[in-house]
């Protein structure tokens, strides 16, 4: 019969590479990395936010509400990037059966949904002064709402399945198929409605760019939020690894006294 994935792994000449992320090594490595990531996060995010909130001028036609941008844009960008990271982690799980990557995807979802919610809420709060409404069916906002739904479904599926490997497999399949449909939704939504929302203001095209005063602290907060994500991801993945280990121990104990 077909060989098991474990023997396949042992023969792979890249095995030494993947070995570095086996759960035990991951725990010790990530434990060492945590303080450094935390330091980078603190050194970028806090100055960025302080700079953005207190040392930028209030724009003449935006008022001081423009400062929401330092929460809104980083969280919005992270929300999308985190989904992409989950897609990559899911693919690694499907191809390599790498437990840590499945757990990392699970951990990332929780952070991603929080970021999405934060972007939605800051956007809504910003929309009130800007467009006179908390919500409009603008394509950008709408596709974000859809992204939120994808996160919800993904997390609900994780929560509904007891067996961790089954859950990892099924959520990975959902993440892959879901990504295709999320992309489709993006285009569908654009087709469906032309919107009010800002274009890509960080593009290289100078014409579209916001002025430098706002731009520099924004870059700092962007870096800071990315570091924050890595930090949270490490912490959360470590928790998931421990939970998984506890689950295994519990199951084993249960089998012991049948």
């Amino acid at each position, binding site marked *: 019969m077909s060989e098991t994935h474990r023997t396949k792994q042992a023969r792979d000449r890249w095995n030494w590479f993947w070995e570095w992320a086996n759960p035990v090594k991951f725990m010790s490595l990530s434990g060492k990395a945590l303080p450094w990531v935390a330091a980078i996060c603190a050194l970028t995010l806090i100055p960025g936010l302080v700079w953005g909130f207190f040392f930028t001028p209030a724009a003449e036609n935006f008022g001081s509400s423009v400062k929401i941008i330092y929460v809104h844009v980083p969280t919005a960008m992270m929300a999308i990037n985190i989904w992409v990271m989950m897609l990559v982690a899911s693919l690694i799980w499907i191809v390599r059966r790498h437990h840590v990557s499945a757990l990392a995807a699970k951990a990332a979802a929780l952070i991603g949904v929080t970021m999405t919610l934060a972007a939605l809420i800051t956007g809504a709060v910003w929309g009130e002064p800007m467009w006179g409404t908390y919500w409009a069916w603008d394509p950008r906002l709408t596709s974000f709402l859809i992204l939120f739904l994808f996160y919800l479904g993904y997390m609900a599926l994780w929560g509904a*399945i007891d067996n961790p490997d089954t859950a990892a497999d099924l959520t990975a*399949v959902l993440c892959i198929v879901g990504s295709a449909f999320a992309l489709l939704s993006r285009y*569908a939504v654009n087709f469906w409605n032309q919107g009010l929302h800002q274009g890509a203001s960080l593009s290289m095209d100078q014409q579209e760019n916001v002025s430098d005063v706002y731009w520099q602290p924004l870059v700092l907060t962007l870096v800071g939020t990315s570091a924050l994500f890595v930090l949270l991801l490490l912490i959360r993945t470590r928790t998931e690894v421990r939970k998984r280990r506890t689950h295994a121990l519990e199951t084993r104990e249960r089998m012991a006294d049948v």
Partner: protein
Amino acid sequence: MIALLLRDMRLGVRSGGGFGLGLAFFLIVIVLVPFGVGPDSEILARIAPGILWVGALLACLLSLDRIFQLDYEDGTLDLLATAPIPMEGAVAVKALAHWLVTGLPLTLSAPIFATLLNLESPGHIWVFLSLLIGTPALSMIGAFGAALTVGLKRGGLLLSLLVLPLYIPTLIFGAEAATRGAAGLENATPLALMAGITAGSIALLPFAASAAIRVNLR
């Protein structure tokens, strides 16, 4: 394969389920909306294509868990998995049976229900056509969602949660095609895009769904 198709359709029609009830649910949603929204015929006509699409989608959704759940519970799925037909084929056939028992009747009856919502004549045809092209995608995507949730107790609501975001592109293009058609505008683009989604789903999703089923059977 054909045996499976015939069996599934026979079960769908016989088990006091699928067929008539999908239609009935569709009818009831169409009836409820005027009660909720108010009887103003101009607004109704304007939202009619959208409501018809949302109604068809919900009716479709509610019968999704039948696709695999019953076969899972009584052990048929185990036996099918060890039978000499590829699981991908079985999934595709089951989605087809679901469409024949649910999507097709909905499509055929939509023009009649459109009248209930004061939709004028050219709109009928476009609602019909867009549903005809779009509902196979709904069945196929739904079969994928059903495959994901087949092992779970009362996966019904979870299934809805997983499937509805996947339905959004189809819904947007379908409703857009119908609305534009009803308003006499050009609607070849949304129709073509929707046909693309349908073709893509039918080509690719059976593989994802059968993988999910094999995982769930473990």
